[in-house]
């Protein structure tokens, strides 16, 4: 990951998160795919986040996790809870998105044949995240990687 990208996105949280989980997500690992999102969902239910917000975060985290599995060379999914917001941050090591605007369009997908056969790659991932999150910040450099920061207000 490009150091400038990292600092610009990750070092701006003013409050130290109370809950912080980092999940390593491997590329093309369909065996564990979805487990991180499942853990996140369970934690949210236990801390008593209202169920509508749990639903939105669950959808977004699942899509974000799947994006790492299907499209990236692998990366980290970070789950942060502060008293005022919940953040999901994914950081991968490539290949990067050449045209973010295009990638945010419904129906657009670069998923591999293997992934499509498994029912992924309908081109709804990023749009789905966008629809459910309060803010989405995405930065990418081809050959470097992508950082996606999804924020939900509590």
């Amino acid at each position: 990951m490009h150091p400038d990208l990292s600092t610009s996105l990750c070092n701006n949280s003013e409050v130290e998160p109370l809950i912080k989980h980092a999940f390593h997500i491997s590329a093309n690992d369909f065996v564990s795919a979805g487990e991180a999102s499942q853990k996140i969902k369970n934690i949210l239910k236990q801390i008593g986040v209202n169920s509508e917000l749990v639903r939105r975060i669950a959808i977004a985290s699942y899509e974000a996790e799947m994006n790492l599995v299907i499209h990236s060379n692998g990366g980290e999914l970070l789950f942060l809870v502060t008293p005022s917001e919940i953040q999901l941050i994914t950081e991968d090591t490539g290949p990067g998105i050449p045209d973010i605007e295009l990638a945010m369009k419904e129906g657009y997908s670069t998923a591999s044949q293997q992934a499509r056969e498994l029912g992924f790659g309908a081109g709804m991932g990023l749009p789905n995240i966008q629809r459910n999150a309060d803010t989405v910040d995405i930065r990418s450099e081809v050959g470097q990687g992508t950082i996606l920061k999804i924020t939900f207000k509590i």
Partner: protein
Amino acid sequence: MKSTKEYYHSVTLDKDKCMGCTNCIKRCPTEAIRVRDGKARIIDERCIDCGECILVCPYHAKIAVTDPLSAINEYRYKIALPAPTLFGQFKNLKDCNMIMAALMKIGFDYVFEVALGADVVSELIKEKLKIPDIPKPLISSACPAIVRLIQVRFPNLLNHLCRVESPMEVAAQMAKDEFSKLYGVPIEEIGAFFITPCAAKMTSIRNPIGNESSHVDGAISILDIYGPIASNLKSGVDVEDLHRASGAGLSWAITSGESNSLKIDNYLSVDGIQNVIPVLEEIENNRMSDLDFFEGLSCSGGCVGGPLTFENGYVAKNRIRLLAKEIQNKSKKIMNLSYVKKNMNWQIQKNIIEKPVLKLDENIVMAIQKMEFLERINKSLPGLDCGSCGSPSCRTLAEDIVRGTASEMDCIFKLREKVRNLAEEMIELSEKMPAGREQKGKGENKLYE
């Protein structure tokens, strides 16, 4: 019938039989059981009466409380409401009327098939499916254990529930209405008793999920009534033509029966509560919005796999399938649908509310702090999920510690670690002599110098 307690449960523990093993705590889908002081304890707020613990307990220490057969005598007129499952309990049964006649001989004045209620409910669900913008998939509200599971673990999906009353409730109303008109007797003098394959239904009668009270007055376990029916069949019964339900209604006893009765293709039916949970997770993650209907049944094979049934669930399932095929075209069609809609409670009235028992604290900031504490404890535990502490997993023990209902020393590995540390400390202390005495170790060392 109305409950006086906030939490009524049919599933209870026979303390004398409980050995304090870990079978039930491991199997419980809502982590509602702990072993404390050598005995299992059910956490009332969490229990959904699915009966998994009844099925898994090797000592038969988990039981379902149902009404004794004698309870029917509290009413002047008695109606039996046999669950469709009952008809799958007997070998080579060709005619449902045989079972109904055997029930009459036991002392019921009238027998009304719940399968007939199911026929009506199927029509009502079909109408629900046509409502535009109804949340999809529509989730069946037939299995009370699944509805309670959703209340506890999937509150997001409460608005997907189809909220049509169960065949049992509809049948009870139809039966009482019919009987009171037929014989000119007041409804209050009629008692309707469900012949039940499961504990969850018993709980629904005492403590209905979306209504103030049930139209059913009691539930008798299939296991309790199987013997009397069998002996009546042996001694001979006067067969009357009482059977009216369709094969589709009867098939509600088995997985996909309800879905098939709706005449739709785009449905998913899943049985066994441990199988239902991951599918509900998928629906919650919005990955099944293209599906029209979801039927989730707590027991394997459907109601035929209920904990209060006598026959092997799969054997019974096959019998229901054959019987349904047999009676398919002989059905004497159902009561006027508009009459039911006008005169009976066919919709779940009250809001089905969330039961947030998983929450660590009412205050979210406190809950977050507790979660952080929970994670820290969890990391320090061995992660074997052995259950020796009485909690189903290490993580649940961490949760129990945070909630103040367990301590870290309940973990035998933690305890052993502590004992070892104490022992080391003791050895260390034993080697220390008062300063005035010659130090043994030092003295010896001197010899070698």
